[in-house]
């Protein structure tokens, strides 16, 4: 009888832990129902030896142009041009930066918005630079 009670208690404790874990994995994201690219985006551009794998992009929309910065506060790369093609929600971003030696380097990102209706939407695609670097690109809206 005691063992059964202990088993029951342990099972309910385990169940509580399971529910708690499920709750913790549901990360809230601020809603953004306006222009789909506006906001802060955090993710990776895999294999980027110049700037590292992690990338943060902040973008805004003034009614005509998408503007923004890549890695504000560290690299401060101003986005030279960014476009969003609503047909397929295709994203194209270009930005000029400098590598560790101070030489000019141009990054180009091509991707597509995924999960558009959700606040936790993402842009997934590839990045490349003009020095042969390329890799997978993925950022999620914060």
């Amino acid at each position, binding site marked *: 009888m005691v063992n059964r009670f202990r088993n029951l208690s342990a099972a309910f404790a385990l*169940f509580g832990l399971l529910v708690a874990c499920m709750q913790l994995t549901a990360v809230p994201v601020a809603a953004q129902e306006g222009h789909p690219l506006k906001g802060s985006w955090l993710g990776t551009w895999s294999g980027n030896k110049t700037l590292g794998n992690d990338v943060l992009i902040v973008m805004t929309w003034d009614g005509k142009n998408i503007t923004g910065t890549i890695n504000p506060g560290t690299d401060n790369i101003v986005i030279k041009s960014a476009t969003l093609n609503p047909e397929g929600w295709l994203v194209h971003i270009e930005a000029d930066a400098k590598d560790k030696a101070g030489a000019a380097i141009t990054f180009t990102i091509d991707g597509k918005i995924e999960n558009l209706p959700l606040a936790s939407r993402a842009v997934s695609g590839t990045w490349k630079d003009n020095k042969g670097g390329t890799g997978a690109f993925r950022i999620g809206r914060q």
Partner: protein
Amino acid sequence: MHLRVLRSVFVAAFVVASTPLAIAHHEPLAKFDDKKPVNLTGVVSLVDWRNPHVHVFMNVKSGAADGAVANWAIELESPIDLEESGWSHDTLHPGDRISVQGMAARNGSRQAWGKSVMLAATGRKILFASVAPPPLPLAPHPTPRWPEGQPRLGATAQGTQGYWAFPSATALVEAGVNAPMDAWGLLKSIADAPKVAPMQPWALKLYTERQQRFLQDDPMYLNCKPPGGPRQFQLSPGLQLVEDRGRQRIFVLIGSGNNNYRIIYTDGRSHQGQVGGDDENPLFYGRAVGKWDGDTLTIDTRGFNEDFWFTNGGLPHTDQLKLIEKLSRPNYDTLKYDLTVDDPGAYTRPWSASWTLRWVADREMARHLCQENRS
């Protein structure tokens, strides 16, 4: 024995925890398919009389040789709408035999939206919502006025009740455009989407996709986001306008969403610095200043955030949105609402719309209280 019980508890808990959030109060077509009619006859097993939608559960014989019974969930309008139509939690009981005509769930589950519920024994139609506007008086009553002559926008005397409801249009469409929609702003034909308003390409595509998903992503219903902008004047539960002349402001008390309020300042303050330390914070209701011009209150509102849908039907907006709303009360029973939308972030030019609301006299506004995911 205990193991079997525990296993059931775990299975049930896992199913509940892993099931995607149910769509709460919603456009019925977001969840149900009007191209999938369903006719069911069976016995009521449970009546779940609560917001946001009443559910009647019924056991329906499958028609198979073994006489298997399946339990169906019939979703109906809210208790408030049903009660206003004369029904109560006591209208139907477990054991009653009923026939239901409706439309089946899009996801193939045993759920249906009940368009018609009939008592099988008598053929009497029950549990349908039929909320009609109050009849207009044969001779219109004159516009009620304050002693200074200004029209009164709310109740007319101490102790009287009333509110504005029954908007003549429940979705925002540019004036002069014919784009038929249902009461929730869902277009009858998606081909009409470009006509609704002069949208920029991204906004048109976003609007079209929201429509094609049957408005199921509407944050007002999913997450109880406030109905900012003109949407508060197009919701069926209505609103109250409370004029606080001493403090020179008008409160818009909203009968749905999350039952909050909007303030329209009439004391001459500017949009900036309305509330100390809050200049840069974009808001669901923006920053509104109102000014009387004869019998018309002109409201200039800016400073909206982008966290909500400002219309039924999902027209997009940006934080560049500016609204000019003109309120007038041409007679006792009518509120006229004229709107100009200026949002260069989402639209190619400013555009306008107008509609009227009806005065619902001597009644308290019902409280459709929204809770997260239970709106």
